[in-house]
């Protein structure tokens, strides 16, 4: 208790130097919260979007299906079992048939993936009800519309090979353009009613994969293999981790600057305040208590930094969390979901963890130079002799 009072007095007594240390440390504190909060917010949004628009509660894949290998798609299809058909009817499964095709927007040729989906499905957020009203139409996402310069009502010529290898072509009518943040159901994808695509392919009743409704865990029967949410979100997790890592470099540097400044202040002050240290001892403190005072000074620095950070960072972070902020573009190409605005989320764990990190780090860098006091000769210290 005394140590905290003394530390506070010493820090306030040191004026500008202290304020500078506190300011830099508080900046590190706020930036750690801001950066991690942003990534956590992005992560939550990306997970939610990906689950709602793409993966549902997990997917059953045909064992030959490999989304990274376009050639696999040709053979990756099988008829639904009676059970699966029933589950699809109950809205627990949404079968999807995927077919490689070529599209010819404005006379150019472009590889696309035709995807058949039940217009009545409610498993994914894709607005398939538009296909109910336009059974001859097709749905695309806004990225696809942009890339192919298409708008609602336009026609798009597509060519594909059916299951027997015969080429066929058709003009699709763009019935709707949906807006979603998940690139994998948008870029290069054209959504059709599944029965129509099955007819086009001559694959009645067959599908490539089935999306399970949230919370429903379908049974695995050959040739279907279940891919859990965790497996399907593994890529997202990897990207989030790497984003966190690259951010850590930024605020790690800031933390190091702040901690070095405190370390430096402490080394200097232990050197300059030798006479004071000797006097503490003469007045009846043990050396351990004096080390305690200097160590606690570091902790008090960090607490003041947290208070200061809360004062200016609190409103700033709150504003971002409420109104979001636009992430620099470029993330679209990473193949994972990024919305136009990110709403940072500051979890209790993040806030507490950051506070503990800052307090412990500042305390440790104050303790390290203070250990020197244990070897200080009080009679020399009182005279202020330089060692």
């Amino acid at each position: 208790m005394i140590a905290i009072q003394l530390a506070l007095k010493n820090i306030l007594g040191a004026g500008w130097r202290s304020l500078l240390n506190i300011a830099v440390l508080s900046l590190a504190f706020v930036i750690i919260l801001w950066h991690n909060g942003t990534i956590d917010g992005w992560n939550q949004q990306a997970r939610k979007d990906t689950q709602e628009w793409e993966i549902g509660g997990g997917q059953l894949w045909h064992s030959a299906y490999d989304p990274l290998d376009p050639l696999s798609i040709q053979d990756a299809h099988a008829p639904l079992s009676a059970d699966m058909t029933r589950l699809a009817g109950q809205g627990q499964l949404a079968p999807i048939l995927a077919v490689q095709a070529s599209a010819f927007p404005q006379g150019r040729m472009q590889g696309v993936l035709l995807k058949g989906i039940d217009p009545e499905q409610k498993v994914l957020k894709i607005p398939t009800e538009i296909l109910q009203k336009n059974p001859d139409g097709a749905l695309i996402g806004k990225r696809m519309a942009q890339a192919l310069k298409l708008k609602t009502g336009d026609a798009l010529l597509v060519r594909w090979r059916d299951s027997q290898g015969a080429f066929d072509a058709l003009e699709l009518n763009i019935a709707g353009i949906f807006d979603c943040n998940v690139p994998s159901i948008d870029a290069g994808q054209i959504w059709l009613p599944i029965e129509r695509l099955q007819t086009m392919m001559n694959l009645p009743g067959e599908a490539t994969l089935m999306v399970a409704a949230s919370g429903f865990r379908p049974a695995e029967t050959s040739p279907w293999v279940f891919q859990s949410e965790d497996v399907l979100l593994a890529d997202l997790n990897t990207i989030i981790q790497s984003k966190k890592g690259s951010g850590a470099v930024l605020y790690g540097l800031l933390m190091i600057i702040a901690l070095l400044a405190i370390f430096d202040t402490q080394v200097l002050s232990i050197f300059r305040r030798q006479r004071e240290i000797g006097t503490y001892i003469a007045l009846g403190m043990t050396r351990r208590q004096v080390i305690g005072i200097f160590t606690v000074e570091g902790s008090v620095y960090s607490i003041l930094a947290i208070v200061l950070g809360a004062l200016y960072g609190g409103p700033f972070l709150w504003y971002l969390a409420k109104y979001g902020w636009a992430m620099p573009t470029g993330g679209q190409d990473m193949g994972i979901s990024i919305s136009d605005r990110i709403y940072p989320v500051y979890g209790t764990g993040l806030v507490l963890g950051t506070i503990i990190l800052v307090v412990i780090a500042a305390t440790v860098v104050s303790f390290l130079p203070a250990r020197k006091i244990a070897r200080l000769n009080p009679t020399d210290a009182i005279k202020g002799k330089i060692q």
Partner: protein
Amino acid sequence: METIIQIHQLSKRFPVGNGEFTALNEVNLTFDKGEFTGLVGPSGSGKTTLLNIIGSLDAPSSGEVTVLGQSIAHLTHAQSAQLRNRHLGFIFQTYNLFPVYTVFENVEFALLLQHLPAAERRKAVMEALEWVGLTDKAQSRPAQLSGGESQRVAIARAMVKKPAIVLADEPTANLDSKNSHHILQTMLRLNQELQTTFLFATHDEKVMSYLRRIISLEDGRVVKDERIAAHSFIKSNS
């Protein structure tokens, strides 16, 4: 008279280069409660070294030093800190006030270490500031004080806990004549009112004129130990 410091065959040697330097050589002394005594002698004769050992800031190389019944050589860090905190007051040539604390806080410090409640601390601090005539400077910082005022704060800080012994190393060396007399009279008054034992190390003629016992050191040895009858001028001055 009650003996409160007993020094028997005390030697202090400092390592210097490859050899040793003997700063105190077989010193034998006793001090009674309420003494107002000075250690005098040329520079380097061992005055400060002796005060430091009595104050348990330094350890004897050989011999026995007993302060208030406790053998200095055998105290742990915590015990010697406790001894200093409760029973010993220090006054330094350079005042050694804490620059960031107010006068009040400087004086209060020893009482904080004793975990006294705030009201009691406040009372004791104001009383100590009254002894040295500085109640009006309680909220000043050391940088705002004159040398004489600083040393009076240091006296208040040493006296606030009513220690048995005050050790003062050249307390007047940085003061002018007027301030020196003021300080010495203050200390003499406290010596008489509170029966505090004062032990000085000094070169200063002005200090010597107040002393009732003068111990002369030379090359770490006691060469003279004389007692002086109470000065009559003190009463008229104070």
